[in-house]
């Protein structure tokens, strides 16, 4: 249970944490992503993909060493927040704290603000604006912690987003074809080897959101809990890598480091499928804040 005094401080802890997470995500690639890139390097036999992957590994080492951003694209800031049901939290204040943390990261570090008005193209230079950062809220039963996952989503990969409202008669075959065709269309643009997120079912908006969750929130190497979906993930990952697009689209065995699927029930007359891509710097930083206000950082 939170005490009143801790609760009073909680919002400033959240603000500081949101700031640190944005900066950490841009510099410190999660260990599962590093392992996947290392493995890809070992798998490749041709000269070009090996050179490309070894440059990627070198870039990661330089980021560690010099505390420098890995990719220059600071992206659109996304926060995925899980609120324990036993926490006594004022949600609008929590959201404000995250927005302030994002602004402070941008101004104080400083970071490039990559966020602008969709028509006027004006940029507040704070990485924030109407409805941005995107804050996703989830609630966890019988829990007294706050978990914040931060993902900077770059444009090269986000521009390669696909949705199709298939019909049930097209079945799983239509779904598989759409995924393969989307990856081929994306090609070199989203800085391969990338992570492919697939959304299945739901409504159009939920389907796209599921694809995003699959692409950016799951550690690489994880499998869906549903064994049928997990089998589909493996089958499609193998198929995608047979395309041979390879690192930076210059050919090779590794086009995707992972392919993750998230699904939801859908309408009896619908069969939606969405694809969202995350580039090789699959940036992600996580923090858990416990009831006493202690913060633990992870990925």
């Amino acid at each position: 249970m939170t005490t009143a005094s801790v609760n009073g401080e909680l919002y400033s802890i959240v603000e500081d944490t949101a700031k640190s997470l944005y900066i950490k995500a841009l510099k410190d690639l999660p260990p599962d992503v590093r392992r996947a890139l290392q493995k890809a390097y070992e798998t490749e036999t041709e000269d070009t993909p090996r050179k490309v992957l070894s440059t990627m590994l070198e870039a990661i080492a330089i980021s560690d060493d010099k505390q420098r951003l890995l990719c220059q694209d600071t992206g659109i800031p996304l926060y995925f927040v899980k609120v324990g049901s036993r926490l006594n939290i004022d949600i609008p204040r929590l959201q404000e704290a995250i927005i302030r943390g994002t602004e402070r990261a941008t101004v104080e570090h400083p970071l490039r603000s990559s966020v602008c008005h969709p028509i006027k193209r004006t940029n507040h230079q704070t990485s924030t604006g109407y409805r941005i950062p995107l804050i996703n809220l989830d609630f966890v039963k019988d829990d007294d912690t706050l978990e914040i996952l931060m993902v900077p989503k770059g444009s090269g990969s986000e521009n390669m987003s696909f949705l199709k409202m298939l019909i049930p008669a097209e079945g799983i075959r239509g779904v598989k074809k759409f995924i393969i065709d989307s990856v081929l269309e994306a090609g070199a643009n989203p800085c391969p080897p990338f992570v492919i997120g697939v959304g299945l079912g739901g409504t159009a908006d939920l389907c796209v959101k599921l694809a995003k969750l699959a692409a950016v929130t799951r550690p690489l190497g994880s499998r869906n809990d549903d064994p049928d979906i997990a089998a589909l993930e493996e089958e499609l990952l193998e198929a995608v890598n047979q395309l041979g697009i390879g690192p930076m689209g210059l050919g090779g065995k590794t086009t995707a480091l992972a392919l993750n699927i998230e699904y939801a029930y859908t309408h009896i007359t619908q069969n939606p499928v969405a694809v969202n891509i995350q580039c090789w710097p699959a940036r992600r930083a996580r923090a858990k804040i416990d009831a006493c206000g202690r913060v633990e950082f992870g990925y």
Partner: protein
Amino acid sequence: MAEYRLTTPLSEEDVRKLKVGDTVFLEGTIFGIRDANLIRMFEHNVPPPVDLTGAACIHTAPNVRKVNGGYEKVCIGTTTSSRMDRFTPGLMGQYGVRAIIGKAGMMEASMEAMKKYGGCYLAIVGGAASWETEKIQAIEGVWWEDLMPEAIWKFRVRDFGPLIVAMDSEGNNMYYQVKARARDRLADIYKRLGI
């Protein structure tokens, strides 16, 4: 596949010998260009205020810090090249640029220009800005600062590579080759997936 260490400015001969799949390391200087300054050059017809003969130009708008009269690098990365395809004929034909450094490749207009004038496209690893920033020694010049950060930049580089020759002066395009091969494999992939 050969490996070359080239010093700027590049000659036609330097570039004509490069074939897709070769590796290049650059020594000397490279120029940072991007949408806004290219639009000024070719849509508003303002000639660049610096000689680009034999230049290697990289698609970037760097993140910099102002320090007593000059600029210091903070984070320099490369952007997607395809939207600047239409400017390559002018860069190479009118101003003598020999190499474009970028990510994800360019299309027909650039392929034609590279063939006609003797040019190439050198693929850099996208997303590896920390590495790229390390390879850039200093910012030596800046023009059209009113377009900040999309000014024209001059960077001193050392051991700038590996860059992969992805488009050459014979009209070969590695991205097209890779995609064509992927398309050839589609039937087989569909079959295995039961499509």
